[in-house]
């Protein structure tokens, strides 16, 4: 990790911050024109000078951080428990970074200036936050990434690729239009994913609620359907493919109105099922103690439940 040079958030001086010095206890700032450290650019032309800006905020417990950029990547990782550190890489001078702090709530947004486009308006953010902070990320283009955290996470973006890894206890809410979504090692929280045509990959994801809705995107699940949770995967035309170990403990219901289903597990039949008994298009029954409930539904996609 590069050493951080704190930047003063006060409007007044234009002197560069001294190396190694960080300024804590920041105040409210609106549309700050911030003293920056201008790093080497890849282009000689001044019009595409890429600039890196760094900010630092002191926060208490239950911090709430939101980062919103029209274009650009956002990545969030854990840092110190009392600080939020943001590094923003602005691709041109056609875009600004707006910041606001109200107590423990930090709002960071890219502000496009006239004439900005997808390239010139791009800002990439790297954010270090307290591990249990609540985070909300928006970017049209992404990618969005969050790792090793325990707070509530919201990641949204029409085209953004979303990656969430090693998250525990919090609510994870993801929404994309086309962007593919990957969750790995997410445990013990509520997971709610909605995508229109993005594929969703879940690896080792378990918890009290794991709900995925996709239109034409596919859903892949590789895990143990554990924690006695409610797992609901629904697609319209996308296929659903789930792989689980032989010792899974779950109550399965699967039904595709028009698509075919396939199941590797020997299922104990259930008394009441709300699905009609079309053998090729549904299967339902329990494995083990049926601790979790798994509902797989598609309108015309294939549904496959395989044993690892």
């Amino acid at each position: 990790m590069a050493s951080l040079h704190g930047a003063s958030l006060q409007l007044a001086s234009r002197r560069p911050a001294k190396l190694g010095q960080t300024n804590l206890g920041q105040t409210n700032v609106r549309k700050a024109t911030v003293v920056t450290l201008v790093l080497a650019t890849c282009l000689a032309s001044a019009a595409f000078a890429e600039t890196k800006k760094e900010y630092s905020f002191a926060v208490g417990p239950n911090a709430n951080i939101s980062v919103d950029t029209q274009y650009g990547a956002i990545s969030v990782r854990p840092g110190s428990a009392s600080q939020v550190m943001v590094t923003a890489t602005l691709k041109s001078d056609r875009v600004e970074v707006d910041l606001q702090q109200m107590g423990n709530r930090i709002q960071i947004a890219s502000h496009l200036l006239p004439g900005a486009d997808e390239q010139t308006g791009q800002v990439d953010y790297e954010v270090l936050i307290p591990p249990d902070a609540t985070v909300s990320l928006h970017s049209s283009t992404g990618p969005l990434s969050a790792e090793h955290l325990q707070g509530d996470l919201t990641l949204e973006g029409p085209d953004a690729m979303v990656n969430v890894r090693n998250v525990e206890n919090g609510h994870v809410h993801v929404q994309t239009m086309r962007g593919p979504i990957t969750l790995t090692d997410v445990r013990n929280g509520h997971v709610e994913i909605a995508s229109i045509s993005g594929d969703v990959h879940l690896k080792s994801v378990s918890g009290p609620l794991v709900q995925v809705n996709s239109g034409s995107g596919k859903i892949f699940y590789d895990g143990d359907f554990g924690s006695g949770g409610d797992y609901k995967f629904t697609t319209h035309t996308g296929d659903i493919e789930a792989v689980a170990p032989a010792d899974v403990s779950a109550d399965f219901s699967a039904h595709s109105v028009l698509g075919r289903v396939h199941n590797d597990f020997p299922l104990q039949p259930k008394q009441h099922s709300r699905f009609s008994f079309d053998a090729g298009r549904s299967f339902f029954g329990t494995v083990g103690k049926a601790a979790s409930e798994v509902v797989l539904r598609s309108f015309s996609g294939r549904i496959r439940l395989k044993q690892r």
Partner: protein
Amino acid sequence: MTDPKQGISEADAIEQAKQGHEAAFEVLYHLHKRRVYSLCLRMVSNPAQAEDLAQEAFLQLFRKIGTFRGESAFSTWLHRMTVNVVLMQLRKKGLPVVSLEETLEGEDEAPRKEFGTKDLKLTGSIDRLQLQRAIDRLPPGYRTVFVLHDVEGFEHNEIAQMVGCSVGNSKSQLHKARLKLRDYLKFMRAEKAKTG
């Protein structure tokens, strides 16, 4: 028909439902929910499915309520709609709505002869729960006609039209269903007597 609890007559509720008043729909629902649901439950023997079917029957009714002109009784209209919803579901699942044999064969004589003439006649009233269980045990084809005729009170010609069989078929199906029920009930009674 006026429901004093609701303070609104069925005719008024129908008119208001046509205007889209939610309270009116609710009145109509509560007036007829038991009949509709019981019919569905008797036909499919599965409470979860019966709920879905009852829901669908009411929805179809409410969607078409604009076309109800009052020529026939509202309950008759709803009743028939419910039967159609259930029959459609049975057909979709590939279950036989009605068996196709026309004539009464002697096949049911053997089980009856097992009991012999010395067996208990089904005197007095039949335990309602036992009767329900016995109906649930009926093969779907027999069950349909029995429920429609003996439980719901449709005539054979109506049943024939709804399920798509002949009147003679309907009568023989009903007879077979009753014979089977008689056997089940006697069996249940005998079992109960054994265990005391």
